[in-house]
């Protein structure tokens, strides 16, 4: 016998189910009166420094159906690449909270994230990652929240040297993470859960 390591196991995940909005976005669902407002309505406040951007998209299943019951959360740095909480490198822009909770529209399935483009953040070895927004996606049918990232197609120089993007062996799959610029300050990106054009998901 050897000594016990005495670690606990992580609580196993379960799907968020179809009614995740009751708990996480009750006002948007139409259940007002419990909380004054839903948390994570915006990752920025007025006066946030940086380029204002809007990203829209859909979440699509392996049969091509658009999910109406998907919800994701996003977490990002400020325009200088500092995270708004627990960042050992300093204080972020006070007008940036960095975190948002985004539900797909019940009818169209389209989601919308209004924010600022984040600055670059260092990888553990000091190299800079390209500007990105971390995403955690849940829905009915998803047993464990999916980790992915939104990168930007117009950051080609930074993307080319990003240690995380470069970890993706199948080069063409890196494109599944790049939000396409559709107009100044406007981007579009679909999350494809399965099959053709499947989004890269991470274990990080």
């Amino acid at each position, binding site marked *: 016998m050897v000594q016990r390591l005495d670690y606990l196991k992580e609580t196993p995940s379960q799907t968020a189910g179809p*009614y995740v909005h009751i708990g996480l976005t009750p006002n948007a669902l139409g259940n007002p009166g419990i909380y004054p407002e839903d948390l994570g309505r915006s990752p920025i406040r007025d006066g946030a420094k940086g380029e204002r951007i809007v990203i829209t998209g859909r979440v699509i299943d392996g049969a091509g159906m658009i999910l109406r019951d998907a919800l994701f959360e996003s977490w990002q740095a400020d325009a200088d690449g500092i995270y708004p909480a627990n960042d050992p490198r300093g204080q972020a822009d006070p007008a940036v909270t960095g975190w948002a909770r985004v539900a797909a529209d019940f009818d169209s399935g389209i989601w919308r994230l209004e924010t600022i483009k984040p600055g670059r953040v260092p990888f553990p070895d000091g190299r800079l990652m390209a500007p990105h927004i971390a995403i955690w996606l849940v829905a009915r049918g998803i047993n464990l929240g999916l980790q992915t990232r939104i990168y930007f197609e117009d950051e080609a120089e930074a993307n080319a040297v990003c240690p*995380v993007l470069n970890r993706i062996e199948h080069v063409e*799959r890196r494109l599944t993470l790049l939000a396409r610029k559709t107009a100044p300050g406007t981007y579009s990106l679909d999350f494809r859960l399965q099959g053709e054009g499947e989004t890269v998901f991470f274990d990080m």
Partner: protein
Amino acid sequence: MTLSNSVDRGPLFFRDRDWHPAAYTPGYKTSMTRAPQRALVALGSTLSEETGPAFGQSMIGALDNNLVMNFTGQPAVGERIIMHGRVLDEQGRGVPNVLVEMWQANAGGRYRHKKDGYLAPLDPNFGGCGRTLTGPDGSYEFLTIRPGAYPWPNHVNNWRPMHIHWSVFGSGFGQRLITQNYFQGDPLIDLCPIVNTIGKKEAIDMLVAALDMNRAIPMDCLAYKFDIVLRGRRQSFFENRKEGM
């Protein structure tokens, strides 16, 4: 304080994905088209996963953790229970000041959601959501109604066991977790395709809240204990020194 900062900032433990449910679990039909087929791209956590949003006490209302009263101020119908426990990390340390949110059906198994058409009626005094921040030792507490079982369209005659949905934050975005708890002794637990997306019996047992008579209040309510464990953080002495901590 220095110690807790270094604990809060280390790289995250790797997730044991054989312990969690797999993505593709045909017994739970919806997973079949919503499970990625390609391998996950694995690498250690970065600052993007090791940092995460922080929440303050100021955003929590006085009745936010009291589902019996928080919808209309009149009491909801059903079995009154205290749900309590601690949020811990894999090293067994309490995780303080983190947001715990929960939602559930009413005593009849009906959700207050426009997509739920189950024939059991809504309770006019039950909304079905609550939230709180953990205390300095990671503890949390809710007063609620024990939710009823309900049918769902998977196989012809599937019924979800009584359960509450939980959403928990750690100090890093990579610790983000949603799960469900079940209740000790419920015979539907073994039959549920969603429970059985988890392959290991010991893992399922972690989701079963224990009846806790010591926390029950006589002539008022029963109590169940449900601890939640989040990913731990590596604290390699050398790594911490390298980063100047």
